[in-house]
């Protein structure tokens, strides 16, 4: 098992390296720079700034210097927030984004998982059709449409929930989390329905029934583990999607998370900020994919045996 984990981590190194390199040169290839403001800056000031941020060096030297800093865990200074390092900015934005992502994931797993299982218990009845139709809507509805619709309905028409912010007014975390989680709940519902349907038709479920176990024990003890495997496999990619989705949601609801920094950094040509967040997020995505593989192996003894070989 450890060999598998270490092997996967080693595999991740070239992936992240390629991400860094590609991002570094792509960002530089985009027209404009961090100090090309609308009002002209005095050439001497611009030169001094560029020297300070090593922009006067040839591109390849900048690249190696950046890699060198990165090895020591230093993501560099921000170009647009003078005096603040990227590490500090990520530290300040991450808890908010992580909290939002965690709530959204929780909603996706609980709401999606439960409705998928319920649907699988009585396939082709209303108990199946209703949640599955809702799931279809959830998949089709983009976040940037769902968010404003929820705001219109619950924030303005009904006036039940605050329309923006994070942690300022009680209840303001609810709408962003639902907006972000809805589409994933829909995917999870479909995956868990398919997984459970497959497992519940297996011979060993009949064996469990023949033992006289009550139906809920058959479903939970014998069905759930196998039925949830597709959902677990989906968690890695879902995590990447949640991060990308959180940028939209943070913008809609004015939430001071990583996503908003990221989007602004792209507009501002804040090179280190773009690079830093990209490296950080791609590392997280790699780790979460690994985590979901490990959970899948933990759930499936046959896979576990293969990995420990």
């Amino acid at each position, binding site marked *: 098992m450890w060999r598998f984990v270490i092997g996967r981590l080693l595999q991740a190194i070239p992936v992240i390296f390629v991400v860094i390199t590609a991002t570094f040169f792509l960002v530089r290839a985009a027209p404009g720079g961090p100090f090309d403001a609308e009002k002209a800056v005095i050439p001497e000031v611009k030169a001094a700034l560029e020297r300070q941020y090593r922009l006067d060096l040839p591109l390849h030297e900048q690249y190696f210097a950046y890699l060198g800093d990165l090895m020591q865990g230093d993501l560099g200074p921000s170009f647009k927030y003078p005096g603040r390092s990227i590490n500090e900015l990520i530290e300040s934005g991450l808890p908010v984004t992580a909290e939002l992502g965690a709530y959204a994931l929780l909603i996706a797993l609980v709401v999606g998982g439960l409705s998928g299982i319920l649907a699988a218990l009585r396939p082709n009845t209303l108990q199946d059709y209703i949640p599955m139709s809702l799931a279809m809507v959830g998949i089709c509805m983009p976040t940037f449409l769902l968010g404003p619709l929820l705001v219109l309905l619950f924030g303005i028409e009904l006036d039940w929930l605050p329309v923006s912010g994070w942690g300022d007014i009680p209840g303001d975390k609810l709408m962003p989390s639902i907006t972000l989680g809805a589409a994933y709940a829909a995917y999870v519902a479909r995956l868990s329905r398919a997984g459970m349907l497959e497992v519940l038709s*297996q*011979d*060993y479920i*009949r*064996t*469990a*029934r*023949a*033992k*006289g*176990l*009550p139906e809920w*024990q058959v479903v939970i*003890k*014998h069905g759930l*583990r*196998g039925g949830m495997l597709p959902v677990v496999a989906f968690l890695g990619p879902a995590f990447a999607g949640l991060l990308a989705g959180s940028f939209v949601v943070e913008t809609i609801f004015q939430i001071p998370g990583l996503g908003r920094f990221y989007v602004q950094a792209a507009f501002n040509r804040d090179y280190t900020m773009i690079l830093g967040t990209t490296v950080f997020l791609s590392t997280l995505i790699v780790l979460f994919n690994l985590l979901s593989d490990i959970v899948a192996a933990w*759930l*499936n*003894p*046959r896979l576990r*045996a293969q990995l420990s*070989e």
Partner: protein
Amino acid sequence: MSLLSVSNLRVDFNTRNGHTIAVNDISFSVEKGQITAIIGESGSGKSVACYSLLGLLPQPPASIESGQALFEGHDLLQMSEAELRAIRGRDIAMIFQDPMTCLNPFMTIGDQLIEPLIYHKKLSKNDALARAKELLVEVGIRDPDTTINNYPHEFSGGMRQRVMIAMALINEPKLLIADEPTTALDVTIQAQILKLIAELQTKRDIGVIFISHDLAVVADIADQIIVMEKGHLVERGNREQIFHKAQHPYTQKLLAAIPNSTKATSSHEPEPLIQVEHLKTYFETPSQLVKAVDDVSFQINKGEILGLVGESGSGKSTIGRSILRLLPVTAGKVSFAGTDITALKPSDLKAMRRRMQMIFQDPYASLNPRMSVYDTLAEPLLLHGLESRKTVEQAVLKLMDDVGLARAFIRKYPHEFSGGQRQRIAIGRALATKPDFIVADEPVSALDVTIQAQILDLMLALGQQYGLTMLFVSHDLAVVRHIADRIIVLYHGKIVEQGSSEALFNTPQDSYTQTLLQSIPGQSLRAS
């Protein structure tokens, strides 16, 4: 009073494809301390009848139309789900056909074994585990302290079936229903499991319902035999009555299907078509080297059917695939009509492939479900340029005639056929390129005995008609004896004995061959 007495049971199925009567007004009883066998082909309603008693049939599509099933005086069919649940796994337990799929792959066998004890008897987990270990020893599993924490995939098929039996018996049921418990197993393992069930039945003095498609299997153990055909009970009687005085033509057909004859020896010019010299095929996994085929040499003469017999893991299928170069060979030489195939370049292999074909075991899995009969049979003809687009349909129809498929089926897809019909399609596909040599890998193991007999006869007839040379791989000596001229017995990748079918059956030399012979079900039939 009988332990179980079923009267006038009728079970219907309502599906989109129409209304069928799966079990039509049957009555039978099961006595304490006796084994009652229910025999019939797939679709005869034998399993449906038993599942309906325990509420294990999904309703809908099934519906129990009428009947009564008195178990110790209470009607099972009138019970609520909760009442039935209290009986399932406590008073009536079941063993199913395929031990590979009937145990939960996500739970240790210990956890699965103790469930009935904890649920029905409210035992503590430790007491239940102790009881489970006793049961494991009783069904012949050594070292229960370790094995109880293993997962099903760590056991062989026979071992899993022992676990299933332990699980069924753990609550000391009064009635055990065994649904084809040995059909998925090798003959040697089958013999062991049959013996185990009979022993445990006698020791505990319980009633057993033994469901099977194969009369030979129950010949040594059943006290009472019920024969079902298309939902009807057509004959019942004790062993003597069924095996020696069968009245109903269907029972007689089942009896005739038991492979029990040696093929008449035919003389073949001893001209070798296939020569296998020192063949070795090894598989490497990170932890070990598996010597699946370990230094095997033999030859197959032109026009001959050579039987290759052994149990799962003996390397018999690997030999077949190695000869066709479907697997990389580790060492050794395979010659086909004088050409060394192991040295052939991939480009020359295609021409060779036309002359060597394969028929696989599972006709449900080996046919592409998205290809019609026409597509399946026309593909090899067109691929090898044997027919043009214009003439291919006639050639396909001719093939269908040869393998006994009605011409009207040409546009149908595999799921519309029965297992026997699918195997006919697979045989047609193998014959399409007019090969000289066919490897048949357990072609009848997945089929009911009656269908098995039909397919074997078809293969014999086609073998003659096409002048085929065949390597017939099987775990079942009785089947091989029916079709093969010569037999090779394989054990752990090595040949332990070879000879003419006649000699091998009458004077087996090797002890393993003797075990195989003794494992053929229905010994008492042959003795009498």
